[in-house]
């Protein structure tokens, strides 16, 4: 690690004051940032510890939930309102990392974790436009089984690694931010960027801007929702494909549906095309496969991940089929 100073912030105002230096970084649970610093991928000169900021989960006036950014991943997954009203979020969280990491990791940090592309981590000899802009991308022609098939660019084919964020994308969450210009709210879908020619920038956050909370809207169909993750081993691995989905049926027809995919793009992928295709139609395997085909029509698979569109379609069909039959998971 390169040298840095450490300071604890007691509230958001103090964090913003301490974090206004361009080379400062906010520290949550440290499960990603400390690792990146050890590998010298991240080299902040100051860490502002925001893990002690408010960590409450509160009911909102309209019947949603307001989740403090310092809430630990485990605390969110086990919260009764999340388990009953937003089960896909509980299931997404416990599908990620290990229990030890979930006990440390914060909600804010989960949003801002960086890709697990191995070339991004390999400072000893790999080219990576996300780590060193303009150096090139060794993933595009390299081992790219875990990489993106949607929304990628010549510069970068990395995926966003979070499970929790896939659920938040499907749930129409809102991110609460505070910065030098004041507070603002951002639809979750607008938080993460596609790589374009600036893959070094993951989100639309301004320098020094702090995630203070994530808000879930009231969403009736979220009570019938789940998360399924397909990976190379049964536990403690990143997703090849994951699906977060919520379903509301009206007889045999789909009254409403929410779908997001993980493991396919530089950001959690809200599948609006597939949702539109399914809404009002029959809840059949055939309809789901047709909707998935629409969603992945622009897919650009790489050497090692041509299986992803078909795997995503089958996983979606299994998930929606299970929800339609009233299966718990």
């Amino acid at each position: 690690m390169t040298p840095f100073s450490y300071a604890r912030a007691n509230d958001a105002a103090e964090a913003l004051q301490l974090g206004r230096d361009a080379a400062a970084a906010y520290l949550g649970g440290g499960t990603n940032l400390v690792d990146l610093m050890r590998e010298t991928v991240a080299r902040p000169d100051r860490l502002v510890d925001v893990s002690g900021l408010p960590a409450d989960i509160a009911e909102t006036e309209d019947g949603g939930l307001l989740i403090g950014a310092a809430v630990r991943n485990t605390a969110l997954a086990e919260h009764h309102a999340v388990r009953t009203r937003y089960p896909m979020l509980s299931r997404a969280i416990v599908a990620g990392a290990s229990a030890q990491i979930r006990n440390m990791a914060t909600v804010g940090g989960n949003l801002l974790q960086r890709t697990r592309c191995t070339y991004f981590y390999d400072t000893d000899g790999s080219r990576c436009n996300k780590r060193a802009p303009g150096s090139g991308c060794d993933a595009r022609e390299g081992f790219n089984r875990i990489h993106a098939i949607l929304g990628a660019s010549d510069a970068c084919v990395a995926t966003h690694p979070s499970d929790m964020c896939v659920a938040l994308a499907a749930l129409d969450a809102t991110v609460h931010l505070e910065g030098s210009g004041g507070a603002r709210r951002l639809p979750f879908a607008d938080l993460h960027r596609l790589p374009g020619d600036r893959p070094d920038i993951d989100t639309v956050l301004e320098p020094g801007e702090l995630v203070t909370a994530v808000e879930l809207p009231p969403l009736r169909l979220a009570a019938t929702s789940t998360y399924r993750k397909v990976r190379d081993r049964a536990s403690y691995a990143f997703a090849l494909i994951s699906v977060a989905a919520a379903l509301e049926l009206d007889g045999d027809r789909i009254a409403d549906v929410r779908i997001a995919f993980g493991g396919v793009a530089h950001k959690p992928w809200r599948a609006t095309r597939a949702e539109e295709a399914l809404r009002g139609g029959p809840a059949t395997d055939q309809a789901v496969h047709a909707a998935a085909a629409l969603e992945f029509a622009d897919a650009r698979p790489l050497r090692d991940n041509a299986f992803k569109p078909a795997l995503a379609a089958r996983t979606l069909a299994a998930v929606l089929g299970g929800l339609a039959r009233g299966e718990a998971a």
Partner: protein
Amino acid sequence: MSLIINGIAVPAPVDPRVSLLDHLRETLHLTGTKKGCNQGACGACTVLADGERILSCLALAVQYDGRSITTIEGLAQDDALHPLQAAFIEHDGFQCGYCTPGQICSAIGMAAEARRGVPSHVTTDLTADVTLSRAEVQERMSGNLCRCGAYNGIVEAIRSTVAAEVAA
């Protein structure tokens, strides 16, 4: 402020780069906690922070100033092993032993999580009380690797002690 390690107050390191793992091993000479991968992938460095299992390799020691840390050295009561330590011997829950301190600390934290109803990836009913079946123990302990492959003994040791207490 200071860290409380197995009940004893010790100063936090001056250099914020020092991980909790290195502080335990190199400064305090508590070498029971093991350094495996040093990148959060193996669980060998698992300790308890205020009773919650965490990875000490990904923890900066300064961030745990004021917190109470329990390591493998803090589990036995004088000469009496913690029941889970005894069960690891009884059930052959190790070969080389390198992952064992992390396995034991992790299982103690795991049992506390199950007791308060934290669901896992294999939990069918998210709102029911947790029963620590073999599948549940395997999933909940998946953050602790054993490269000798002593998993059968590890799961049996856990199920015969801390997991049995959850069901009771």
